[in-house]
């Protein structure tokens, strides 16, 4: 794992799912910001990291009014994670939407593939008070791993 100082971890959303803790956090980078998702499954970690992505842009609630389907495929699970976040960045930018709920299924049989849904609504500048737009997810501090307790974690730096 590269460039992560756990002292800087700021726990944000915490939820219980399938009996194990799931949650997301941000971690510090000189100019930008890191997103990390944690969960009992790889898919949950990806979903939680996506919530961390939303958390960079807004701290306000986002209604799950419209669903957008996301599919990605990559040679490895870390690249898949970057692809997943970048697919969300693209959909947010072109649809002028924010997402507040995510659900993904991940298949690993040779190549890695993701099928997911992101639920959200059109950006409302008054209500969401968006802070910053995300330019893209990077390969910096990119890591997807399962810790000794069986928890999955997925993280990388995003450029803002």
């Amino acid at each position: 794992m590269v460039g992560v100082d756990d002292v800087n971890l700021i726990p944000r959303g915490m939820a219980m799912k399938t009996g194990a803790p799931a949650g997301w956090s941000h971690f510090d980078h000189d100019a930008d910001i890191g997103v990390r998702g944690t969960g009992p499954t790889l898919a949950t970690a990806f979903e939680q990291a996506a919530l961390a992505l939303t958390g960079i842009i807004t701290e306000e609630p986002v209604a799950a009014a419209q669903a957008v389907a996301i599919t990605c495929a990559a040679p490895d699970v870390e690249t898949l994670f970057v692809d997943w976040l970048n697919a969300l960045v693209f959909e947010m930018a072109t649809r002028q939407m924010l997402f507040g709920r995510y659900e993904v299924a991940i298949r690993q049989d040779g190549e890695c593939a993701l099928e997911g849904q992101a639920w959200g609504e059109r950006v409302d500048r008054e209500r969401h008070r968006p802070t910053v737009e995300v330019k893209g997810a990077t390969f910096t501090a990119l890591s997807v791993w399962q810790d000794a307790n069986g928890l999955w974690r997925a993280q990388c730096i995003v450029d803002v």
Partner: protein
Amino acid sequence: MDVNRFTRVSETEWHVEPHGAMRVPAVLYADEDLVEAMDDKVYDQMVNVATLPGIVKASYAMPDAHWGYGFPIGGVAAFDAQKGGVISAGGVGFDISCGVRAMLTGLRAGDIEPVKDGLADALYKAVPVGVGSHGEIDLDADQMDAMLAGGAQWAVERGYGEAADLERIEEGGRMAGADPACVSDKAKKRQRREMGTLGSGNHYLEVQRVETIFDMAIAAAYGLEKGAAIVAIHCGSRGLGHQIGTEFLREMAVEAPKAGIVLPDRELACALIDSPLGQRYLGAMRAGINCALANREIIGHLTRGVFAGFFPDARLRLLFDVSHNTCKVERHRVNGEARDLYVHRKGATRAFGPGHADLPAALRDIGQPVLIGGSMGTGSYVLAGTALSEQRAFSSACHGAGRAMSRHAALRQWKGRQVVDELREKGIVIRSPSMRGVAEEAPGAYKDVGAVVDAAEKAGLAKKVAFVRPMICVKG
């Protein structure tokens, strides 16, 4: 960063001699305090860049260097295609051709003062800023390709700017070699409604007062006088550049091992210049440069429209428009031999010295304006390229202050409203859609831009010409 990791060559020059897989030395220009304040990852990243194939002379880092994506932000590296050199999407960055333009208004700061709030409101209304904003220009497929090939020249032809601006923009306002066919449909889709938008984060449009002149002769040649009001615009290639960066960073990361390029870290992803992927990236990246040049030209045009409403006789003239996230082919002398090199500047500003053939006639004897953005509370600098710049780091200088603390740390320390009120006390008017964004960009979250430019001047990277302080700051 521990200064003992370097060999100190002078007060402002620090070397890492080649070791391990390094092909050339790594050279950092900064004073001791700046080096000590830097993240250790600057060392790692400048050393990593020195291992890349075809690198020439050294891997350089500027006084404002900080942790980037593979390359340090504030990194400069030149590669020779004929020696197996590479091109790196991370060495250019996500915001391709992000840069600064400065426009002379012909007005005094005292002319602005009585209308400061109204002018701030009008600029904030005219120039789309922040998340969820979009411009009035909606490009169809043909217009998009024309913009990507034509840059600021396209904007001027469409009536968004003045022909006289073009010689004051790098590359005459149009980057040659751009290939819109190398830009994905997704990147074009992302840009469709984003022409003439400022973006967010550290991007800004400011009205500034020239507060200090350091070099009277150069300032006079640039048209800068103490007490004058100028406009500065900092932004880049918007969604199109971000999408190009995203796609090519990923493709290079996946393809580099297959091409036999050994990377110390995957984030250093690159491709051989003389490869189909390298050439495709060049075509797309140059189109991204044109997008940024067109974008800043359009924002300049919108700004002129607003000023005309307040000051009908004012004529806003472009001082210069310069990028700090690019890779450009430039001729440099290396050991007495002229070579065409692919110079990456990631968070570093080109700084051509006097006599450079690429400078417009009006600036050729003086040197290129180097525009350095500081924080919204402190100020910015205008520097000039010098004869020494070429010898130091392929005619490159710093680009800004660099963050002193993370966005979260800034949020823990400041509230947006408090920052706005404190700046108003200092006579600086802020307009932004996001108070959290203002807190993240609080002046105290940035390093001392003065220390950065002092180090740049001492190191011979560029010469100080003027210090400017914001009066109005429109922030995304």
